[in-house]
């Protein structure tokens, strides 16, 4: 086909996707930036330009810093743990353990349950005195009772557990597929050479899983900023913002306080974090990947 046709056809094929992407990804990013420099329109008063004032308010807002810290801590807590667990689960399910089918089912089930639904169940688990956790720790083990969700020092960890529980099984599937693509001859060769399982894993399996790890890592990072459903049900950000995450705060500010300008400024911070982590991951890790 001639060059002109190629140009036209190419753009035509791309057009529907491009338009929608522009409308719901690129335009909103720019619009958020624009609105973050304005004030919030209320009732009669229209929005006007206020420059960096929203950002100044952001820096002076102790809740913002708390929420940001929470989210970073939350990411640090959930990402490595879910990935490590996912690899472990994949190895187990791929191996020769009895009842693999059941294991695979059990690990994957959290993925198909809506977070909103299971958050209520986890709420029961964490309820003091007669909640499932307390029935075990207090009833069986005799430990003192604890208000897991109602204490600032433990609430974020409790939510992390819920997130890891939800995510690990999903990542496991990707690792499982990758594991099954590793030729068994590698394992046999290693066995012949007398290499231990841990050594084999560290030097052969894990590097070969790197592409999957990159893919899973990207997902995990996004999810740690994206998933706030459990907060809505279990803690509503409390106590005293100890379990609030950035997106939840944005939702509060934007749709409960109706302060759209400040919400835009907060969103810009979130976008900056996501962009930075994308660049980091692709630049840094891309080099370390072994492609088969």
């Amino acid at each position, binding site marked *: 086909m001639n060059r002109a046709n190629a*140009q036209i056809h*190419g*753009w035509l*094929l*791309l057009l*529907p*996707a*491009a*338009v*929608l*992407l522009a409308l*719901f*990804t690129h335009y*909103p*990013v720019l*619009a*958020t930036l624009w*609105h973050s420099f304005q004030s919030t329109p209320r009732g009669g008063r229209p929005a006007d330009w206020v420059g960096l004032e929203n950002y100044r308010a952001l820096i002076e807002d102790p809740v913002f810093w708390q929420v940001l810290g929470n989210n970073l801590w939350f990411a640090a807590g959930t990402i490595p743990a879910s990935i490590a667990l996912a690899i472990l*689960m994949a190895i*187990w399910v791929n191996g020769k*353990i009895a*009842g693999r*089918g059941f*294991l695979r*089912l*059990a*690990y*994957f*089930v959290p993925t*198909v*349950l*809506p977070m*909103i*639904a299971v958050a*209520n169940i986890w709420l*029961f*688990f964490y309820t003091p005195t007669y*909640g*499932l956790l307390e029935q075990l720790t207090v009833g069986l083990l005799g430990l003192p009772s604890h208000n897991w969700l109602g204490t600032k020092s433990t609430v974020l960890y409790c939510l992390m557990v819920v997130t890891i*529980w939800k995510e690990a*099984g999903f990542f496991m599937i*990707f690792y*499982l597929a*990758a594991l*099954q693509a590793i030729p068994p001859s590698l394992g046999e060769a290693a066995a012949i050479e007398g290499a231990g399982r841990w050594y084999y894993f560290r030097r052969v399996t894990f590097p070969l899983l790197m*592409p*999957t790890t990159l*893919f899973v890592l990207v997902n995990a990072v*996004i999810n740690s900023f*994206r998933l*706030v*459903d459990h907060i*809505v*049900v279990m803690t509503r950000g409390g106590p005293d913002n100890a379990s609030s995450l950035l*997106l939840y705060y944005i*939702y509060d500010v*934007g749709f409960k306080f109706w302060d*759209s300008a400040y919400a835009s400024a907060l969103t810009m911070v979130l976008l900056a974090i*996501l962009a930075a*982590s994308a660049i980091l991951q692709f630049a840094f890790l891309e080099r370390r990947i072994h492609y088969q």
Partner: protein
Amino acid sequence: MTRALEAIGAWLLAILWILPLAYAFWTAFHPPEFATRFDLSAPLTLQNFVNAWNAAPFARYFANTVLLVSLILGAQLVLATLAAYAFTRYEFYGRDVMFALVLVQLMIMPDVLVVENYRTMAALNLTDTITAIGLPYVASAFGIFLLRQTFKTIPLELDEAARVEGAGPLRVLWEVYVPLSRPVYIAYALVSVSYHWNNFLWPLIVTNTVGSRPLTVGLQVFSSGDQGIDWSIITAATLMTSGPLLVAFLLFQRQFVQSFMRAGIR
């Protein structure tokens, strides 16, 4: 020895992992008094399901959700296929720039742009419709990326052979590229359906009434209460709403994993 320990470890983890679902089964099938008491002699009942069904229009929520995920998936497949084809087999100005722009959506998903997207929907007068829930997701960077990778692996000879037989570009796409990418399509469909079946925040923001509400939002509206939490009815509702996905996974477990593997997502 370590093998045995590993097996035990794996099983313990599995039991822990399935505990919430097990609890849901327990509580949904027993009267409310036994929601916190695990008395094995407790009577079974279906009343919770009846109450749950009556308490909110789940039939409508189901219908909305099925419609939603189907529409989204359908549109995603079409758009991503066309776009991936363009990126793979066409040379046009700005192709690499466009691809980079597409990749932006991999990191910056519509979920974090709720404030602006809501404004857009309001301006388009689309709030409180199923379209509004799905539209931001229909152009899927993940789908485009995946399909482009896959299309790239299809040998050019097949493409040229089809063209020699007189097929136009779209027919080549339909007869050569699409069939050879089946595992990828299946894997992608599974990811997309489970994502959108479970999506909550954006549908919460953009829907107001039962007419457009999907299951997740319906569940939340239904389980938040002034009168306190009734786990029996909530777990019954949970089982009802996750039922289809659970059953589907039970039946198609192997295919799930197989398609991911053959999709070569790594």
